[in-house]
């Protein structure tokens, strides 16, 4: 069913897909009229649109429609505003803006985490959450009954409590150095918590920060693919056959998954 819909979407679409056509031509993917491999076959029949150049001549940039200047993705599905502000400040300390490029705040990492918590990941939807619950050895992994949303709710409140106690201010109002002190106290379990593990919570927000910095921008983080640009990661390219044997490092304009769907 999904496929028929997709076919229809593609048929309705008018502009030819230069990047994919070029890719197919240049890669010799269609050999003597024989097309092998399903996705590529459907691309040939039903071209879609791409504004991004896949062929690395470096002078095509993304053209966002004017109405995308406002990012409607930047609203909250799970966090309260207070939680969001703690998260935004904490992730910026974990992944700060520096000479290399933007930090977590500019990349939208806190929005990414909010959106992830609102979905299946936030409720451990595909994880085994049946009892009985026992503490277990560290080699046996997480054995708690709390779901990620609940862990974030508790963890962020505890960060706020610790900030208030130690510095008499909310986490977001602390100096960067004070914020680091709080994060360090969680990372090293200097903060003693009873319901969750402080270091476990720190690991979770650290992991989520890296995900938010580097996941495809479709999830709300990695704004403008700036996270990828930091690492010279070219995102989602169709093929690297031309450069795979090359000695010289190849810098390319990254491509996101958005380019794999038609947008009128």
């Amino acid at each position, binding site marked *: 069913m999904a496929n028929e819909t997709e076919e229809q979407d593609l048929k309705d679409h008018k502009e030819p897909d230069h990047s994919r056509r070029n890719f197919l031509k240049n*890669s010799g993917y269609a050999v003597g009229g024989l097309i*092998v*491999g*399903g*996705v*590529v076959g*459907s691309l040939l029949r039903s071209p879609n649109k791409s504004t991004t150049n896949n062929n690395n001549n470096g002078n095509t940039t993304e053209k966002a429609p004017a109405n995308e200047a406002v990012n409607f993705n930047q609203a909250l599905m799970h966090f309260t505003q207070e939680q969001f502000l703690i998260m935004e400040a904490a992730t910026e*300390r*974990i*992944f*700060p803006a*520096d000479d*290399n*490029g933007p930090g977590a705040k500019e990349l939208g990492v806190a929005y990414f985490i909010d959106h992830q918590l609102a979905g*299946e*990941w936030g409720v*451990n*939807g*595909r*994880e*085994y*959450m*049946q009892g*009985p619950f026992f503490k*277990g*050895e560290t*080699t*046996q*992994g*997480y*054995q708690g009954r709390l779901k990620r949303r609940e862990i974030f709710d508790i963890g962020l409140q505890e960060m706020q409590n610790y900030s208030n106690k130690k510095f008499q201010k909310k986490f977001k109002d602390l100096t960067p150095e004070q914020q*680091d002190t709080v994060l360090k106290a969680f*990372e090293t379990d200097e903060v003693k918590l009873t319901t969750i593990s402080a270091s476990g919570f720190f690991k979770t927000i*650290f992991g989520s920060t*890296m*995900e938010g910095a*580097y*996941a*495809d921008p479709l999830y709300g983080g990695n704004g403008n693919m700036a*996270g*990828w640009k*930091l*690492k*010279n*990661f*070219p*995102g989602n*390219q169709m*093929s*690297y*056959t031309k*450069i*795979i*044997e*090359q*000695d010289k*490092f*190849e810098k390319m304009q990254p491509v996101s*998954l958005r380019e*794999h769907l038609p947008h009128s």
Partner: protein
Amino acid sequence: MATKLPKTDVVIVGVGWGGGIIASELTKGGLSVVGLERGKERKTEDYYMVHDELRYALRYEMFQDLSRETITFRGNEKIKALPMRSYGSFLLGDGLGGSGVHWNGQTFRFLPYDFEIKSKTIERYGKSKIPDGMTIQDWGITYDQLEPYFNKFEKMTGISGDENPLGGKRSEKYPTPPMKTTPGMKMFSDSCKGLNYHPYHMPSANLSEQYTNPDGIARAACQYCGYCERFGCEYGAKADPVVTVIPVAKNTGKFELRTHSNVRRILHKGGKATGVLYIDTTTGEEYEQPADIVVMTSYVFNNTRLLLMSNIGKPYDPKTGTGVIGRNYAYQVLKGAGVGFFEDKEFNIFAGAGSLGMCIDDFNGDNFDHKDLKFIHGANISYSQTGARPIQNNTVPPGTPTWGKDYKAATVKYANRHINVGAQGSCMPFRHHFLDLDPTYKDEFGDPLMRITFDFEDQDRELVKFMGAKCGDILKQMGADKVVANTELAPYEITTYQSTHNTGGVVMGSSPDTSAVNNYLQMWDTENLFVIGASAFAHNSGYNPTGTMGALSYRAAEGILKYHKNPGSLV
């Protein structure tokens, strides 16, 4: 009450590599086959959005839903086993094609030594070389007997490679030439040659060029896109069951595939399997599928679990060392590894393929003298360029802060300035490593979960110490400015990814006392029941298991066709 369906010649449980190969070979041989797959249908068109590290690599899109079924784990019998609540150490397959869809495609042949490991170890070093509790055994088949089936699997998948200078004898060359050689691979190769080792291209199911296999299946060449492991291939370039054997089975008109069909019991009467009991997970209805021959082709854990739940074969008892179902569980020992940092050189390591690499077998199997070493067997040492994706690629030199400004700067700097060399260590079975049914935790139907009792041994720690140093030597020779070699092995833990190379539980051999299946993977005591998979491995070698598993599947298929004509024990 289960609805009883019309009888078929053969029913297979799980449609991945094992099921796909069995289905294609048996239907070509004229048999009617019903394939029961608990997951969903899959096709190449599903991978339009596959270049998504978060969804596929970190949210485990293609893997078994653990909320429905997981395994439990403990390091030893004194500890209470607890469920693997989220993914870590290994990733269980699900859906049509199983783990065969999201593998890397590294397709090795186990060494001649592997199949006769016990005899050959004793012959060269004496009985005392095998420590107490290590339950290695010969596999009841030799490399030479299995060679034609390796060849068959490699031709079906179109493996790209050049000959392993230290491997078993080959009857034919690989069907396609090796993959391309990246600068890092060339450095590894030159370095190994400088050390008098024998480098060769990692045998690859990613396809170096367009290929049409003996079944007439045509596939395109790999584009080195860097999304193989944990991902499906959007080009159909990577060999997987969905783009190779399953369509061949379907084209015969003799294969009926039923997805969302979860088998809960193998039915049997008077020493013969009579069929299987399964649940249609979309409706919750139960069905009985009678068959003349039952072939179990699911993963290691479910092959073992279904036999135990169905009361087939004698369960393994670690106290007495008797019984066979659940015996000789083994894994893979991967911590012997090194990383080299290069200050002035950047590599295009964002590009790659699952099986793009160079490797050596100078320290694998018994290719080197173990007289003065406190371990047997060894590891394949390799540099592979599988695609360094940005969330998971944050390798930094030791001493770097764990987060913040300096951490960020180091991850950015070294993102493309490091090379990993790793050893894929073999894993020997021990009397106290085994699989059985968990007494506490249940799956979504109320059936007991599989319980793993496993930890690393001195054998493994010695192996890691040795291999880690070798990896470091190779990196130094490659000219890295800073080399960090890991030579330590901590206790086995379930939380960080290591390898999805679980083996054993329904092992093959030449005696019903120490094996569950013969060398056609036919159950000793239930002759019309075949159990296909790496569950048959009596130990795990220093290689990825799929090549050997594929060869055993082809041999089993031949056995099943023979059995169908002439029932009885095949050996």
